[in-house]
């Protein structure tokens, strides 16, 4: 249902009010008429009551007169001596004072009821007595309604000696008028339902009388006053209603329509601020409307503020969606959008893309933990941002990878910016972030201007690939940390999508690509090989991929657990095919991710259970324990329960403190080759420290394994320090076929 407008509602209200007023007026009018009718009915009843009383009085008086006459001596005189009867009837009776009215007529009748002889006189009476007196009748004569009363006349007081009868006639209307004063009854309206010449017993006279009340001028005046008052009241109400309608239109409808218009305008122009108008034009401002206007303005203001806040929030959300929460730099999404905008605006001429990548960030993260890693990333971001121009945007496009785009630049300027960025990183003191060694970054730069053959239009993906290639080049050990792309860097695919990467992925899918070599670990007290450490290589497309190429790829792509599983399958394969002799122990390097990976654990436990007769050493790094200490501890205990010995590998090569050593559930501690070689250092203090560490570990109950034993002198040193095992080229290089060697 379509809602009604305020104007329609006002008109409807006016119409309803008018109808109600009309109905009330009609109601009051009807009530006045009803009241008048009730008064009229009351007056009619009162008039009839007065008439009844009048009739009663007349009848009483008539009987009293008749009885007085009947008992009058002179009446008996006339019935006894009738000589002067007519004189008595026509004069004496009327002068006697016994008749209260002059219109009365009297006649005497003998004992048989016949009228006494004599002319009937001026007031003729019936010639005989009707019925058996005493009787009273109303007879309608010509032009008159007369009451007749006949009563016997006795000679004695005991009423035993009948002399005759007396007849008395009274004019009914005249007697009624004389009987009493009438306030309500209108005797002129008296109508008697009696045919002419017919008689009626006076006992039933009232039933034949019709009368109405006198006109009551006071009542008529009262009714006229009420009617005129009602009309005046109706007019006053009508005028009031019209005035109210005008006021309603001026004070409510119009402002509301204006307000509605303002709201419509506001809806159409969401950002515009509508000034309250029309309210000031009101001759009599309405408080509530002013409040509405004020509230509307406040609401509008708050709405505008809210809109502004929403815009800010939206901008914030927009920015947040495009900002990296950790560093505040733009994120990958913003990078992609800005790239697309730049491509749409064809602003790729003289554009340089700089990619920054933190060197060894994974090692930092694994060694110091994520908190430190995050702090390092934040510091790098701050340094880069400080190094860039104000309008240059810094993007974090990967975990430790940043980028920036320099517009309207050239090689020299790009070089300057890149060097400034590198300097800021190198000059930053990362020790405040808990690091004890410097952090470096590799910077790859690709400039569209520098490619003459593609100057017309270079694709974004191509520019990104070039910057990636330059950055990967810069990350190569021993190279420049800032590398500009040149075609001499080679094919992007050949570098980025390199054979080692493909080999790693393929090897994970097919562990047969893994070629395991086993380096013997010698028990020093008898110099006998006790077991061999399994080392991995990948033979892919006819070439052998070395561990130094393999593990960065695995770490960069978080393939540790999958690669551990592949190695386990390869070792299991070697055990099955006899590459490893049945009694030959083997030491397996397990990545930190593998230690806390359930699949790796299950596979390793299965291997342990299957090879219970074989000594199996599981080598883990201290990073494993640092990352997830509790889960790693549980899993290591599970391995030990399954029969494995656990060795802490590369001890002394990382950043961990000695605190972890005390809580590590390991059986062996393998001194890193860098630690072992310090035993040959000229610095006596370094030698002494290594010796003391070895003593400390040994006194803690661990067996010590020395890596990198290549000379007999070094062997002597470690044997003198109490190392229980040693491995290195002195004892033999790793071999593919352990069984054959054995």
């Amino acid at each position: 249902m379509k809602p009604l407008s305020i104007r329609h509602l006002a008109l409807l209200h006016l119409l309803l009010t008018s109808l109600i007023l009309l109905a009330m007026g009609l109601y009051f009018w009807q009530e006045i008429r009803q009241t008048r009718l009730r008064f009229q009915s009351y007056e009619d009843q009162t008039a009839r009551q007065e008439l009844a009383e009048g009739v009663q009085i007349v009848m009483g008086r008539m009987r009293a007169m008749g009885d007085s006459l009947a008992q009058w001596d002179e009446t008996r005189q006339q019935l006894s001596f009738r000589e002067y009867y007519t004189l008595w009837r026509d004069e004496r009776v009327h002068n006697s004072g016994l008749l209260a009215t002059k219109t009365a007529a009297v006649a005497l009748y003998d004992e048989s009821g016949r009228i006494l002889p004599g002319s009937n006189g001026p007031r003729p009476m019936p010639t005989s007595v009707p019925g058996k007196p005493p009787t009273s009748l109303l007879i309608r004569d010509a032009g008159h309604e007369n009451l007749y009363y006949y009563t016997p006349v006795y000679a004695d007081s005991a009423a035993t000696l009948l002399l005759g009868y007396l007849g008395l006639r009274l004019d009914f209307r005249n007697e009624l008028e004389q009987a009493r004063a009438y306030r309500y009854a209108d005797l002129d309206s008296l109508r008697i339902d009696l045919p002419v010449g017919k008689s009626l017993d006076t006992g039933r006279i009232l039933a034949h009388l019709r009368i109405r009340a006198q006109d009551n001028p006071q009542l008529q005046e009262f009714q006229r006053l009420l009617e005129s008052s009602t009309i005046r009241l109706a007019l006053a109400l009508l005028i009031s209603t019209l005035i109210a309608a005008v006021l309603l239109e001026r004070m409510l409808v119009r402002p509301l329509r204006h307000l509605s218009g303002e709201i419509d305008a506001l809806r159409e122009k969401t950002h515009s601020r509508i000034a309250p108008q029309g309210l000031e034009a009101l001759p009599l401002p309405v408080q509530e409307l002013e409040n509405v206007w004020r509230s509307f303005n406040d609401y509008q203001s708050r709405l505008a503020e809210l809109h502004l806040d929403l815009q800010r929030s939206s901008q914030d959300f927009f920015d947040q969606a495009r900002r990296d929460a950790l560093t505040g730099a733009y994120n990958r999404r913003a990078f992609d959008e800005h790239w697309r905008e730049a491509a749409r605006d064809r602003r790729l001429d003289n554009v340089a893309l700089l990619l920054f990548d933190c060197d060894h960030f994974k090692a930092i993260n694994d060694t110091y933990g994520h908190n430190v890693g995050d702090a390092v990333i934040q510091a790098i971001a701050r340094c880069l941002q400080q190094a860039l121009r104000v309008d240059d945007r810094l993007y974090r496009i990967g975990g430790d990878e940043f980028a920036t785009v320099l517009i309207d630049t050239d090689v020299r300027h790009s070089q300057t910016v890149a060097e400034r960025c590198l300097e800021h990183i190198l000059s930053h003191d990362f020790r405040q972030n808990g690091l004890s060694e410097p952090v470096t970054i590799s910077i790859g730069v690709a400039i569209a201007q520098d490619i003459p053959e593609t100057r017309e239009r270079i694709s974004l993906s191509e520019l990104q690939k070039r910057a990636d290639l330059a950055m990967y080049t810069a990350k190569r050990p021993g190279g420049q940390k800032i590398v500009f792309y040149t075609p001499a860097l080679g094919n992007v695919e050949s570098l980025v999508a390199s054979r080692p990467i493909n080999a790693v992925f393929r090897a994970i899918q097919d562990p047969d690509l893994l070629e395991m070599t086993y380096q013997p670990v010698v028990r020093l007290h008898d110099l006998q090989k006790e077991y061999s450490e399994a080392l991995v290589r990948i033979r892919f497309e006819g070439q052998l991929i070395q561990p130094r190429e393999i593990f960065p790829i695995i770490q960069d792509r978080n393939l540790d657990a999958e690669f551990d599983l592949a190695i386990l399958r390869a070792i299991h394969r070697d055990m099955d095919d006899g590459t490893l002799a049945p009694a030959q122990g083997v030491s397996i390097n397990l990545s930190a991710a593998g230690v806390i990976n359930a699949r790796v654990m299950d596979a390793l436990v299965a291997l342990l259970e299957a090879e219970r007769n074989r000594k199996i050493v599981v080598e883990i790094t201290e990073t494993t324990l640092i990352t997830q200490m509790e889960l790693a501890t549980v899993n290591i205990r599970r391995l030990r329960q399954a029969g494995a010995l656990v060795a802490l590998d590369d001890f002394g090569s990382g950043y961990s403190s000695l605190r972890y050593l005390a809580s590590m559930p390991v059986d062996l501690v393998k001194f890193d080759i860098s630690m072992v070689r310090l035993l040959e250092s000229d610095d006596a203090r370094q030698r002494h420290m290594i010796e003391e560490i070895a003593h400390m570990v040994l006194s803690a109950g661990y067996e010590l394994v020395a890596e990198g034993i290549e000379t007999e002198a070094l062997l002597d040193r470690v044997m003198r320090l109490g190392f229980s095992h040693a491995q290195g080229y002195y004892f033999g290089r790793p071999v593919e076929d352990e069984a054959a060697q054995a």
Partner: protein
Amino acid sequence: MAKLLSWSLALLLGLAGLSARAETMELTLPNHGVLQADFRPGTPGKPVVLLVHGFLQTHAYPTLHRLADSLAGEGYTVLAPTLSLGIPRRAQSLACEAIHTHALGDGVAELRAWVAWLKARRFANIVLAGHSMGNLYTLSYMTQRPDAAISRLIGISIVEGSLKIGEAARPALLRRLRAQAAGPDRRLVKEQFSFCKEYRAPAADLLSYAEWGPDRILAAIDQVKVPVSMIMGSQDDRLGKDWLARLKRSHARVRIIEGANHFMDGPHEFDLMDLVLAELKDAGR
């Protein structure tokens, strides 16, 4: 003997009770007219008083009624008839304006009937007492026919039947009335008579009263053979000029009650009673 005394006392007490109780007696005349009288029986041996009321009055007229009561109280038998004046069982005073068809002779006849009624009851000592014009009936009765039963005549405030027309015109009026009454003309005449300003009656009937002027009254008194006593009030304004003086000169014994008017009312009732009793004592001797 004692028993006889007891019966005598009881009889006396019973008679005394009867004397105080009035009875209405009716008497039918030969013309079928019915008369009524108030009868108070008294002590045997005492005179019977027959009280005749004044003109147009009844026996209930206050002066006579109280006198009758008093006399009855004294042991006198009292008969107080109401003259019918042509109206059977008349019980009301007849208005002056009524049609008067009665004559003095009619009343005398009724008086005679009542005397006969008394005689029939062995009342032999009857005292006739009249008031005002009622004395005309008693005088007329006593002068028409002597009656041995009537022992005394007492007149109270006796007055003439006077036509109020003036001395000069009265003879002519009387002549005209006499002339009319002499024939069969029964037309009514209307004259100022006695205390009535308009008295309408046939001429003969009117004359029956009007002929009783002072002279005829005095003559009648002198004609009566029994003692006649006249009790008059000194302040009676209905009396004619020199009437008391002329009356005193008559045969009658005139007693004047000083200060009394025509009706002897008020304290003069007792004076009247005393005088009447005195007359009755004389009559009883």
